[in-house]
């Protein structure tokens, strides 16, 4: 097939050809590729979204799957074949319990401030814990909360979704149940605004934080 030309404005390559292109582009890289990037790289007039749907179907049940991560796509080996891949297994740094819990809190509550993480865990979060997650590129800094003090928030990244095989953060296991049980709410301690005595020492900052959210 001749090299498609960007000038061929009105004639996109046939869908079978577009599928081949999507395969080639996604096979060539380890990182997920967004639909936007596919559009940019494929000849003018192509419809990567449709081609992706076809390719996904084609690879269903194969040793390699097409998976979606946010608005990007990547080929990944089927999970049940991991046992063949001892050689490829990368030893990930063992995460501390604090780091794992912090990660989960960020994922389920995102965007989450440090104060919120601390309130849920009941202990202060060491700087190193969040730094480690950021360094692993599983967590990144999101927008600042539009509350007094404008605290930074943390959100999970595309790498996080990719690592855990999640299409998006809504696919987190048990998310719906947790939400309907009200466990993802930011429920302020009763009487938070009037706490002045001995009982607020435990999580002084948290109380302040919650007050902020109430505004």
């Amino acid at each position, binding site marked *: 097939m001749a090299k498609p030309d960007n000038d061929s404005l009105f004639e996109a390559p046939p869908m079978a050809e577009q599928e081949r292109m999507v395969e080639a582009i996604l*096979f*060539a*890289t*380890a*990182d997920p590729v967004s639909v936007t990037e596919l559009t940019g*790289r494929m000849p003018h007039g192509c419809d990567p979204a449709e081609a992706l749907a076809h390719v996904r179907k084609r690879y269903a049940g194969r040793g390699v799957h097409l998976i979606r991560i946010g608005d990007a796509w*990547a*080929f*990944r*080996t*089927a*999970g049940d*074949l*991991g046992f063949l*891949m001892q050689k*490829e*297994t*990368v030893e*990930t740094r063992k995460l501390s*319990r*604090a780091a*794992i*819990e912090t*990660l*989960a*809190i960020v*994922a*389920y509550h995102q965007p989450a401030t440090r104060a919120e993480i601390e309130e*849920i*865990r*009941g*202990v202060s979060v060491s700087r190193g814990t969040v730094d480690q997650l950021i360094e692993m590129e599983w967590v990144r800094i999101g927008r600042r909360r539009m509350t007094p003090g404008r605290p930074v928030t943390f959100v999970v990244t595309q790498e996080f979704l*990719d*690592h*855990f*095989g*999640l299409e998006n953060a809504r696919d*987190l*296991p*048990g998310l719906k149940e*947790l939400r309907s*049980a009200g*466990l993802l709410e930011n*429920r302020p*301690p*009763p*009487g938070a605004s*009037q706490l002045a005595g*001995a*009982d607020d*020492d*435990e999580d002084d900052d948290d109380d302040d934080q919650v007050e902020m959210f109430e505004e």
Partner: protein
Amino acid sequence: MTTDQFQEDTQSVSERVAAEALIVDVGAFEGPLDLLLMLSRTQKVDLRQISILALAEQYLAFVEQAKTLRLELAADYLVMAAWLAFLKSRLLLPPDPTEEGPSGAELAAHLAFQLERLEAMRNAAAKLMARDQLGRDFFTRGITEDVQRVRRVTYTATLLDLMQGYARIRTKDDFRPFTMDREAVMTMEQSLSRMRHLIGFAGEWTDIVSYLPEGWDLDPVKRRSATAANFAASLELAKEGKIEIRQGEVFSAIQIRKREPRDG
């Protein structure tokens, strides 16, 4: 209370060992909330039905034990103990309508919520980590091909650019700040190159004024410039030995003629 069981003087060796173990255990807790969650499990009920009063008593007993054993408890454990003691009194005493602040039941409900939420997040974290993970259970492409970034630069210009560019060159002199008016100025170099051509024909003594370029003798400004240039050029040519130069008397005409080689 059970504190009498822990009198120091009656402690057996095994009790001491148990106390050591407790020290380790305290270190294993991530703060009072974590400890409370562990204690609540001993109630063997759904966290939603947990008795906060019983939990408060368990916690206070634990802290009491630690004190008896002279274990150093971090400040936040003691703060929690104080808070739970306060909560316990609120829960036990009938509500006092004149008392400000949240009721004991409200405080207890919030603590229960905190415990349930912490447990939920722990379970979620466990579920998350149990998922297939990239690089452990599923894998990315091993042989990657980098996308070559080819940068092609094309240059362009419009007819306007071209014409403006040409106009700029042709009018460059106008914009040179210190350029003499070329219209009315003849330079020595111009005069020199002109006279070099003409001098070959000057066998006879000729007035220097007659070498002025055509038209330059009409405008006084031009004439002055050209005369001066011609004079300077004549001196230059005389110095080179190309011509001879003479002036009869002050202010009279300056005359030049070609110098014959044989005279040299």
